[in-house]
């Protein structure tokens, strides 16, 4: 789960990291009120889960509350790379002498947290990594050893942090590491980490991702999820507990059991549809051991996309039983009164029984195929036919 800048900063503050004083605002009037309370110049910042806010005009300096209100009004509702701005963060403006970068990522390759620090902050870290790799200090921390003082020293020495700032930067590294560990974070990034002209080091932005699987340990963070955001179909899927990802521009709904098979299904559908311009509309994994009810729910999510003109079921039963899948399909067809073409490929546990159940019911729009490639070809054929 990705957090908005101000949510990340709230966590920063909880772990003792210095951030600028500020408050969130949902309306222009609120933005003005916050600016009045802070006094002096403020920065109005769009809160969206996407980069490039500044370039898109989502971050504006305001000299006074009136200007803050104007900027807020302009930014709210703005579309930034597909994300509508519904929330702002208003904070006291900062004087900046230098911009550093610090992050902790969950390095799955090394299986250890990776700390990165550079004095070349304020830009994309990939750029620094490419253009001046010698300026990017990188260090892994064995989680069983834990962050030791030497890690901090080594990182600061390697990045060339001036001695006068090393203590502040060190405390920020320690606080961020604690935050990373204690909030089950997958990413904690501070870019830029600024130094003010009078030598104060402060986090001016935050990028913060928390492991979805660990949210049960952090109900406060789970509560930060922005229920309003995102695609309506994905929201429906989330509400129904269906493992679903929408793909842009597709017209063939797909469903499989198991993430790998579901991904593979997309690939073979895309390959089959390439010549005629048909594409998969979604990823949907019904998971292991799905029962009839789960299948029906998944179908409901699939059909909520009006662009979907045919559906492919690709189920290879392990825990999942073919007879349950067959019942689920029939239940869904009846309940949703679905008439669009549906191709079913069933294999594995109780597959024969499942195929018999489908053959017995024999709804006219249902087509059973024996192989995955055959099913992909068939569903493309059917959606192409329905378009004609």
């Amino acid at each position, binding site marked *: 789960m990705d957090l908005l800048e101000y949510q990340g900063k709230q966590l920063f503050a909880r772990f003792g990291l210095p951030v600028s004083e500020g408050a969130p605002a949902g309306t222009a009037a609120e933005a003005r009120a916050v600016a009045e309370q802070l006094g002096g110049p403020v920065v109005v910042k769009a809160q969206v889960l996407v980069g490039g806010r500044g370039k898109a005009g989502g971050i504006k300096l305001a000299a006074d509350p009136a200007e803050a209100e104007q900027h807020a009004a302009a930014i709210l509702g703005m579309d930034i790379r597909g994300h509508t701005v519904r929330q702002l963060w208003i904070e006291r403006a900062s004087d900046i002498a230098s911009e550093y970068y610090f992050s902790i990522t969950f390095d799955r390759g090394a*299986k250890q947290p990776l700390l990165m620090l550079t004095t070349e902050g304020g830009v994309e870290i990939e750029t620094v990594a490419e253009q001046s790799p010698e300026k990017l200090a990188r260090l892994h921390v064995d989680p069983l050893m834990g962050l030791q003082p030497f890690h901090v020293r080594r990182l600061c020495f390697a990045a060339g942090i001036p001695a006068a700032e090393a203590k502040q930067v060190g405390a920020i590294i320690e606080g961020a590491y604690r935050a990373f560990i204690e909030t089950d974070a997958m990413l904690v990034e501070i870019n830029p980490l600024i130094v003010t002209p009078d030598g104060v080091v402060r986090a001016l932005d935050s990028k913060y991702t928390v492991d979805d699987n660990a949210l049960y340990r952090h109900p406060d963070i789970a509560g930060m999820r922005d229920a309003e955001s995102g695609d309506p179909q994905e929201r429906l899927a989330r509400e129904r507990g269906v493992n679903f990802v929408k793909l842009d521009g597709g017209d063939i709904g797909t469903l499989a059991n198991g993430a790998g098979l579901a991904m593979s299904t997309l690939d073979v559908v895309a390959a089959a549809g390439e010549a005629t311009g048909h*594409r*998969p509309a979604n*990823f949907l994994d019904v998971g292991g051991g799905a029962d009839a009810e789960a299948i029906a729910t998944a179908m409901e999510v699939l059909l909520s996309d009006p662009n979907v003109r045919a559906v492919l079921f690709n189920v290879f039963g392990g825990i999942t039983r073919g007879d349950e899948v067959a019942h689920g399909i029939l239940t869904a067809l009846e309940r949703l009164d679905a008439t669009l073409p549906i191709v079913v490929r069933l294999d594995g546990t109780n597959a024969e029984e499942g195929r018999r159940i489908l053959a017995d019911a024999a709804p006219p729009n249902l087509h059973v195929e024996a192989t995955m490639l055959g099913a992909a070809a068939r569903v493309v054929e059917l959606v192409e036919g329905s378009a004609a």
Partner: protein
Amino acid sequence: MPIIVTAETRLVVQGITGREGSFHASRNRDYGTAVVAGVTPGKGGQDVDGVPVYDTVAGAVAEQDANTAMVFVPPRFAADAIYEAVDAGCGTIICITEGIPAHDMLRIYNYIRPRGVTMLGPNCPGALSPGIANVGIIPAQVFAAGRVGLVSRSGTLTYQIGKELADLGLGNSTIVGIGGDPIVGSSFIDILERFEADPGTDLIVMVGEIGGDEEEKAGAYIDEHVSKPVVAYIAGFQAPAGKTMGHAGAIISGSSGTAAGKQQALQARGIPVGDSPTAAARLAAERLA
């Protein structure tokens, strides 16, 4: 000859009195696996379908010489279960549970690794050595015994490829599901090393997917250390960046972890990559012909 699950496997099932635990414990035993014990705290002294239940893994190890643990407990309790199995002396842990917090596995991985413990998963289907032993949820009926080693991050996709191989008359030495989480106990390289050393394996099929760089690393490893032919399949060419595709580990971050990148990396090492499970199985059959 099999790897990981063998005729020597003596299995203790953690969470054996749960719905899935009891179902698969019985199924594994019926297949011929020595399912010697189950563990459910507070239910020690009972039995599940004739398998004695203990309160602790230590009890199961002491009384039944269990050497392999299969973890079926819910994700919140899985880290504890894994530690318990390690502490009790189980040298092999196979964790089926899905949804374990990544930081839990981060600690577990770094704990077990220098201690020489073998782990598959979490979020894996287990391992099956056809005709010998099955530990996990892999539907054994799909697979035939043979000389193809199969290693995969995915469950059902593995079954799919197993079936495609079987349709071409090929069987497996062992089918190993390493799991779909960001950190799993065994990497492709760990399993490749075992298949390379296994006289019962003639060819290896590696089934990857988007996310991470294990496939790329495996490619480099194969180039240097694997003499047996390897054929690969990668799922997720259609996956958009930044979205988790079901598996917590299946996510494209920035420009890294794409299926195309993995395919290129493998092909650059001379490892053929099929563009569908069917194609991958055919490549394997050609190599063995």
